[in-house]
């Protein structure tokens, strides 16, 4: 494959992971971004590397693949770029899911039983074990499960580390470069016109996150990836108070839901800086970037149900990000059926940080006709949920 030129469109964590895989495989990689690397969705998430929130199925399998890959990838990066790998703040801290109602407890127990058959490690925590693991969590709980495989990274640093490794392997980064249109010849994409000139290559990878829908429309091969907004609150630095990623059992339901209205569920965890991150919300509001106090309030209400002792803790920052969402809740990884040479990787919604390395691995295996680490068919581009929406979906989405 030496000499094959690939342009990765988008320098978020998924684009960075793809650039790294492809550059290490010996391809000539250029990564372009209309802004700076890792500055949009990637820099506005929590850094989840989770298996706990996924039921049995292809997405869980991709999560498990990614979870296996992360430590390997970071070890490999550390050999070349020790500082960048350290900045990733890889923390296999484990997740704890807490139900606060009887119905929630039943649902959580059933969900976990399914996960166990799919090979997810889970462990039931009784009241004492929960109090020992999370001394400040509510005593008003009906069930709690520990997921030791859940981990966390500092997402922008993780993307930067993957990108730095790609650059070390010969990839080239072009920032402030906006893609305007495709240049095609006989049903094949041969180049893209950008704000800084024509870029030609053999393959193009659409890794533009929530802007993938818009970008693919510009390229003439639209995929239905839409933005869904999530908000996170950040507290002032605290003495250690939250020791795992702790979330309420509703979260799983919210992740899988398609509703456009506001949905919130409590996700609470500490960062190395001492702040507590309090999430999460999901709203389909197009690219509306405005702060909505009632959304923040709803997040606070849920979080306090889980951690009543946080009531006196000041929130010093809130940030919102747009997550790439596909109507059937499955990522897209594969070749475009309409435009030869175009590939898509995206649609991971809130799980893109964790799933980035597995998705990049699958993409590389598909591109280079290698045996794949898992069945990639569920993620194929030519499924109705992806191609059904057609052009202009992003605009229609604004509520």
């Amino acid at each position, binding site marked *: 494959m030496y000499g094959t030129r690939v342009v990765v469109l988008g320098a978020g964590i998924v684009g960075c992971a793809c650039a790294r895989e492809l550059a290490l495989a010996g391809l000539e990689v250029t990564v372009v971004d209309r802004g700076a690397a890792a*500055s949009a969705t990637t820099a506005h998430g929590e850094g989840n590397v989770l298996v706990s929130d996924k039921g049995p199925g292809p997405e869980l399998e991709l999560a498990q693949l990614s979870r296996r890959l992360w430590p390997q990838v970071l070890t490999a990066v550390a050999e070349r770029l020790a500082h*960048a790998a350290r900045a990733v703040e890889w923390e296999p801290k484990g997740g704890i899911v807490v139900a606060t109602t009887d119905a929630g407890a039943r649902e959580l127990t059933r969900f976990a039983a399914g996960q166990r058959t799919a090979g997810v490690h889970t462990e039931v925590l009784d009241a004492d074990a929960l109090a020992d693991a999370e001394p400040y969590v509510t005593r008003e709980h009906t069930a709690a499960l520990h997921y030791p495989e859940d981990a966390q990274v*500092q997402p*922008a640093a993780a993307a930067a580390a993957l990108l*730095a490794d790609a650059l070390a392997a010969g990839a080239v980064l072009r920032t402030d470069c906006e893609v305007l249109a495709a240049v095609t010849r006989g049903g094949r994409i041969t180049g893209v016109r950008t704000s800084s000139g024509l870029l030609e290559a053999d393959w193009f990878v659409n890794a533009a996150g929530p802007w993938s829908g818009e970008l693919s429309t510009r390229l003439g091969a639209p995929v239905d990836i839409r933005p869904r907004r999530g908000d996170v609150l950040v507290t002032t630095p605290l003495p250690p108070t939250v020791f795992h990623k702790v979330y309420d059992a509703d979260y799983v339901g919210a992740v899988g839901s398609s509703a456009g209205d506001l949905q919130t569920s409590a996700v609470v965890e500490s960062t190395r*800086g001492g702040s507590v991150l309090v999430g999460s919300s999901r709203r389909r509001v197009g690219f509306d970037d405005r702060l909505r106090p009632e959304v923040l309030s709803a997040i*606070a*209400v849920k979080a306090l149900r889980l951690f009543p002792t946080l009531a006196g803790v*000041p*929130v010093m920052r809130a940030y919102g990000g747009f997550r790439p969402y596909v109507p059937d809740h499955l990522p897209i990884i594969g070749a475009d059926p309409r435009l030869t040479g175009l590939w898509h990787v995206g649609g991971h919604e809130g799980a893109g940080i964790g799933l980035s390395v597995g998705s990049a691995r699958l993409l590389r295996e598909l591109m280079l006709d290698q045996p794949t680490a898992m069945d990639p068919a569920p993620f194929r581009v030519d499924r109705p949920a992806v191609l059904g929406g057609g052009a202009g979906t992003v605009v229609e989405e604004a509520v």
Partner: protein
Amino acid sequence: MTGRHVAVVGAGPAGLAAAETALSAGARVTLIDSADQPGGQYHRMLPEAYRAVRPERPQHGWRDFDRRRRRVLAHPRCAWWPETSVWALERPDPEEPGVPRVHLLRGPADGGGRRRLTLAPDALVLAVGAHDRVLPFPGWELPGVFAAGAAQALAKGERVVVGDRVVIAGSGPFLLPVAASLLEAGSRVLEVLEAGTAATVARGWSRRPWQLAAHAAKSGELAEYAALLIRHRVPYRVGRTVVEARGDGRIEEVVTARLRPDWSVVPGSERTSPVDALCVAHGFSPRLELPVAAGCALRRTPGGEFVAVDYDQRTSCPGVYAAGEITGIAGAPAARAEGALAGWFAGGGDSAAPALRPLRRGRDRGRAFAERLAEAHPMGEAWPQWLRPETIICRCEEADYASVCRAVGNEASAGARVAKLETRAGLGPCQARVCGPTVAELGARLTGRPAQRHAEGAPTAGPHRRPIAQPIRLGELAEPEPSPEDPTAGPHPL
């Protein structure tokens, strides 16, 4: 009565003037300030509990201020909301442009049981002022190193002097009133150091800082301060600054050095002197989080970013006006003129009113003064030469110069947001209020690329973006959102 409801945020010279003219235009006014008394930083009042017999003593222009304060606060159409902070501005639907909804917390500073209130005014006047811009230098994090404004606030507002062997250093005419406040309170000021060289300062001002005839009020005030320095035999040195503070657990001595016009140090000119306090300010940073949250466009000047306003103090955001230091650093008289114009138009006043003419003149003189100020006290390009690898840039997170250089010097992490997340510079409790402009400037220099282009739809970056404008406790946030208040409700303390 125009029936309009105007919310004025900030009760300093600009906000108070805005409230006054909005009332004369016939509007109902809600005047909001985080302090428990009006006046802002300029007219910082003594606490009532001091029961001072002569509270006007440390004040400049007290009589006019006191009259205006009483007139505004006692006005039947004015609701005065002290100890109230704006924690968020909520922009209306992008489809229907309108004035942002104002989300407030009312109660003692950072108190846990504050009341949540919201306002849905017809017009909003932002007059939130500025704070000291302090450039980093080795040792600036030591206790006993104060932003100049702190020393003044403590002396004027609390009758506490920060020390008795005090050096005041930095740039701009503001150093003089700080010295005056300390001297008035009986402290000993060893010297006042203006980093700008004599030639630079003289080029900007006509000849001496206090001789700017066109700006009578301000230059008169500066002349008084200068006379005070002479009376107390305090040397005012130009082209010299503090390049290092030293001490064990607190400041004990400063290293000062002579500067070239670009603020690089003249080798061999270093001098060490024992001090017990150091007050520093290299200019001002306008408080831009609320204008940015409202969606107001900014304008970039050599002296930094400010809110862009038109002839009538309108911002780019319909129904939102800006006045005072957030539109340019020009001092209290200009802030008053701007505030008066902003309040009048926000209140629905007639644009042909004859009283506007002197106000506009005052405002324009103020802007000329601001330009002059910027020219006379430009920040020297070479100030990063004072830094060492281990010098702290972000005081909150203790991110040092070396780590900032490493992050922005690395292609993969050079994006402002990535560099911030990697170094943690700007992620601490002050939310980049102190280090933000410095990190942005260092980043631009080290990468050779100026401020980042904003991609449509992408979350806006920038050092002034703080959608949560003041900390709010989770418990306060979890309370149900109150419906908009009756704008005239609220106690009248006077």
